[in-house]
């Protein structure tokens, strides 16, 4: 029963992946003064691609054929350890955030191999850029997860998240009870007080910023990469899949959409820990989860709309910025402890 519930939440996340991809495009279109494609267009595109045949270059080996499936499988497996909408993940074990990061890295490794396998100089160039930026991004994720792990004393994402939520919740309830008043403003004021008591506010805020930067870098969003760009020379992710078509391309599209949902779920989980008391029921939690996920998507769309693409040589600074935020939080925490 617990597993069935966890699985249904997992499928909700997959559904959200498509919805988020659609919402991002919708927000961008709105900003550009267009109607834009339907919100479910990413889903239609996948369906369209699945029905198409695919062309495989004669210079490629089996790696090229396997890469999209492995990438998709890695993304889907990484999703299994994520707590969705306040509930526990399908799988959780101690140190599963390491599993999460490296299963994703495995997928990227094969995506890169697949790109290099074609022998196309443009794809090799894209692969080189992708590897550079993701290598720079990796420390940020681990420092953030390490910080949260230190705060809670736990090492599984599910446990860390539920502990974080309960830490805030206790204090909120306690403080509201002690003042004896109600109303939205009081609630927010007390919640802010509660966050500061729990010592979670700054770490969670910074973690969310770092995770948002991860989404931008990892999924090739502005200002790092432009999904709407049509010049291969400027692309990072777009250029790695020039040779893929049909069902392979469908898998790559799903994996990309899923990546946003995975990182979005991490952001949403932390945010929900802060704003949603633990006594809110499961179904309502899922609604709030979906809502925050859409806000995350809208935020990405907004960032995409208002920022201008960075010069590629500046991107490492931006990515390292995420690591430095993470390091600052960690050191602040360590100083606080000592």
């Amino acid at each position, binding site marked *: 029963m617990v597993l069935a519930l966890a699985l249904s939440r997992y499928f909700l996340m997959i559904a959200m992946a498509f919805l988020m991809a659609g919402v991002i495009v919708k927000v*961008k279109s709105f*900003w*550009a*003064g*267009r109607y834009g494609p339907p919100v479910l267009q990413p889903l239609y595109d996948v369906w369209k691609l699945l029905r198409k045949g695919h062309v495989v270059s004669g210079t490629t080996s089996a790696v090229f054929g396997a890469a999209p499936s492995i990438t998709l499988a890695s993304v889907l497996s990484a999703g299994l350890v994520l707590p969705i909408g306040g509930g526990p993940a399908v799988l959780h074990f101690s140190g599963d955030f390491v599993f999460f990061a490296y299963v994703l890295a495995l997928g990227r490794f094969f995506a890169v191999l697949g790109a290099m396998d074609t022998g196309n*100089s*443009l794809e090799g*160039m894209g692969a080189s850029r992708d590897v550079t930026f993701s290598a720079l991004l990796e420390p940020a994720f681990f420092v953030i997860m390490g910080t949260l792990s230190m705060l809670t004393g736990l090492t599984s994402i599910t446990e860390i998240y539920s502990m974080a939520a309960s830490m805030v919740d206790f204090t909120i309830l306690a403080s509201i009870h002690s003042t004896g008043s109600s109303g939205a403003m009081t609630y927010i004021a007390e919640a802010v007080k509660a966050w500061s008591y729990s010592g979670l506010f700054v770490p969670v805020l910074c973690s969310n910023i770092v995770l948002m930067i991860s989404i931008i870098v990892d999924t090739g969003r*502005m*200002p790092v990469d*432009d999904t*709407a*760009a*049509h*010049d*291969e*020379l*400027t692309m990072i992710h777009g250029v790695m899949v020039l040779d893929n078509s049909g069902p392979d391309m469908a898998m790559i599209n799903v994996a990309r959409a899923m990546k946003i949902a995975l990182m979005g779920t991490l952001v949403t989980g932390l945010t929900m820990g802060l704003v949603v008391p633990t006594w809110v029921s499961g179904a309502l939690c899922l609604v709030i989860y979906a809502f925050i996920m859409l806000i995350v998507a809208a935020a990405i769309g907004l960032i*995409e*709309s208002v*920022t*201008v*693409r*960075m*010069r*590629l*040589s*500046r991107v490492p600074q931006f990515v390292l910025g995420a690591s430095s935020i993470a390091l600052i939080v960690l050191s602040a925490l360590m100083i606080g402890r000592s």
Partner: protein
Amino acid sequence: MGKWLTAKNARAFHRREIPLLHMDELAKDLVRFLGEGLRVVHFYGRAGVEGAVTITAVLADDTDCSLLVSEAHIKSVLKYTSMTVKEHSLHLFERELYEQTGVVPERHPWLKPVRSEPGSHAVVQINKPPLYSTGGPHEVSWGPVRSVTAESGHFRLLCRGEEILHIAIQLGYQHRGVERLFRTGNPMNKASLVESIAGDTVIAHAWAYAMAIEALSGITLSKKAEMMRSVALELERIAMHLECLSGISAGIGFLPGASTYGRLRTAVIDSMLRLSGCRFGRGLVRPGGVLSGVGSGVREHVLRVLDVVDHDTEIINAYLFGSTGVLSRLEGTGVITPAQVWEAGLVGIIAKSTGLPLDSRADQPFGVYEKDHFTPITVSSGDVYARAKIRALEIEQSIKIIRKWFHYGMMIGENMMEPTLLGAGQMVVTMVEGFRGEVSHAIITGHNSEIEYYKVVDTSFHNWMGLALAARGIGISDFPLCNESFGQSCCGHDL
């Protein structure tokens, strides 16, 4: 130094007036003149009798608005010492000469093909690149099939890591044999052909053609027709500059710019539709005048559209050129120096973006610009920013000009004059300032008033090398932006 005939833009002269020099003399003079600050407009050869080749050189002297013309014959041994080593701006002209006539410019650095002319002499040369011995740079090949909107062209990027050392540009994929087609059939009926040279420079090319035919047949246009052409030319400039700004915005992911400039461009080409019956201005300019006049309704419509464009560009320009994110991408990217402009023989918008006011409307005035003195705008930094800024400024300028003309009230006279037979044994060179820069046509007529030779030089023929120069030292990922800011035409080059 030999004699050179001094001619004017769009004034026909007799072929017998053209001085005939020895090829060595011609080459010596050319190098000297180019060193003195003249620019090469035409340099081509045409096959004469008994295997001889006549080489014609046309230079522009911008200081006194004149053109210098001279010819040389090459017989029996089809070769001479290349001038490219001394004057780099001739490199493409000499390659074209070799490809079209087989005359070998000896010691030319790389006689690779200009276009894919059937039976070309140059094809064998493509695999003998002179500059790949720089320690084995990493190569990224881009094209000829590029993204949806781009024309066919092949760019071999020689890079060190993400840094571009040089770009070997190979064009010719859209060669349709335009010059050859001009020599067949009735010269009066070539308007549709000339409008197909480059779909975005319709008015400029059609005007250069029509002006040449008119000069050869001795027609004087009505004020109204000249005004209509100028209005159409400036509208084309506004529309294409908007298009380019939209492209630059899209290239850096600046969505408001991409959509706003795109929308305004549509409004402008829609008003071109009112003017000529085609959004790209086809079917307006014909030898003898213009096919459709402009009534007060259309005039009001165009002015109204321009008001909107003026108002909206002001806002979006302020947003584009005021945003730090945008400026960090545009400023200092793909810099061209004035010295490089002279060296490579770049013209038009690229020259103006480095501070050199090369503009046929001022230097070699034609049509309305002969009476209405024109002052080109320049920007000095020579980077992508300058190439974007100059476009924004020229849009403003063109709007002002059109408004001024529409308020002159000189819209009287015939739309069309009856074209007469072309003068026999004559030559004419016409230059029109399209939105990219000068567009030049040259016609030589035979004894029976037939077109013996037709030469077209589009702005892009001069300017492609500029892109390769600008791209040196920039990052690979900045190259498409740089390319966008040049806004060159492949088909204009390929003919």
